[in-house]
């Protein structure tokens, strides 16, 4: 039997803060939608659907990170590399919405919190790390895999600390047996390990796609088609 709850449930963060993050997440998703329009073409649309489906599948695969503790992929780094940051954040959002509506995973009142942490903060953090690394790393399957690994580690820890920020604002409960600082540190530590696990999965996935179909990888687009000379460059990657 698998553990069935992966995301923030109802009641953990108070209603006001949950609502505030729902509004924030709604605005950010709207921004992603307008930016995603620029990137979405006939090639990217099915790829984006596939990335969402793959992230859904991968989130079901909890791997052990310590005694009695597991973790699962969030997906932001993988999505940012394969379909770009805007579409990638939307892919993770779609996964979280499907999970909340169909699989009762992550409270509906907590959807804004979950979207903020995993789809927005996670993908944004991963994107900045990956974009920075790709300035120095080679744009090869190996280079992308390294970027995916480090992006995943940072993004997972960032998402865990985004939760701690929400908990700081709206977790109005007296902690017993632990302090806020200890909890934040423990969250960061566990999610560092989870990030390593996610990083391995993301690196393998991104490396495999970049090897098989470099033309479908968003992060390789700059190489694939400089505005006019696309055909001449098409074979240059791999």
């Amino acid at each position, binding site marked *: 039997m*698998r*553990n*069935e*709850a*992966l*995301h*923030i*449930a*109802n*009641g*953990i963060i108070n209603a006001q803060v949950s609502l505030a993050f729902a509004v924030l997440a709604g605005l950010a998703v709207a921004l992603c939608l307008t930016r*995603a*329009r*620029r990137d*979405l*073409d006939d090639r990217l*649309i*099915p790829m*984006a*659907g*596939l990335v*969402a*489906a*793959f992230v*859904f*599948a991968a989130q*079901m*695969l909890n791997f*052990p990170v310590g005694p*009695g*503790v*597991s*973790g*699962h992929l969030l997906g932001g780094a993988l999505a940012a590399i394969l379909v770009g940051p805007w579409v990638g954040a939307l892919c993770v959002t*779609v*996964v979280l919405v*499907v*999970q909340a*509506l*169909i*699989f*009762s*995973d992550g*409270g*509906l*009142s907590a959807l804004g919190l979950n979207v903020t942490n995993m789809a927005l903060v996670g993908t944004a953090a991963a994107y900045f790390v990956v974009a920075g690394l790709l300035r120095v790393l080679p744009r090869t399957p190996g280079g992308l895999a390294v970027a995916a690994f480090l992006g995943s580690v940072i993004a997972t820890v960032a998402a*865990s600390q985004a939760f701690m920020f929400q908990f700081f604002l709206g*977790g109005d*409960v007296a*902690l*017993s*047996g*632990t302090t806020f600082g200890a*909890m934040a540190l*423990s*969250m960061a530590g*566990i999610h560092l*390990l*989870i990030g390593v696990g996610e990083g391995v999965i993301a690196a393998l996935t991104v490396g495999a796609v970049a090897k098989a*179909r470099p033309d479908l990888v968003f992060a390789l687009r700059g190489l694939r088609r400089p505005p006019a000379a696309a055909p001449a460059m098409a074979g240059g990657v791999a």
Partner: protein
Amino acid sequence: MKRTSWFIAGGLLVSLLLAGVLSNFASASPDGLESALHEGCVLAEDGTIVGGDCVARRAGEHELAGPFADYSVTGVESPFLGTAVAGGVGVLLTFAVGGGLFWLVRRPSRRTPAGPAGQPES
């Protein structure tokens, strides 16, 4: 284009196998967030809180309890089959919702394939 369709189909197949089969072998331990929220509580074998105080005590019920709640299928006895069906449904549904959303929001100008000769529609 056809090659891309095969690639997408292959990726979907991998996702279906991950969510439908491999997920049954996933760790059943609480994830990082859940275990942090359970700090301070005493848990029974099956993960229910039996004593102590922790943040997770405040967790409320989910608003919806559909047929696929908690990645199982109502009425299906076997947990293996339940997870397999729920995982498969989830992958296909996520692909459909994601693909549909992205198809809807793309720029209308790109809806007609601009072939080299500007092939007209119809």
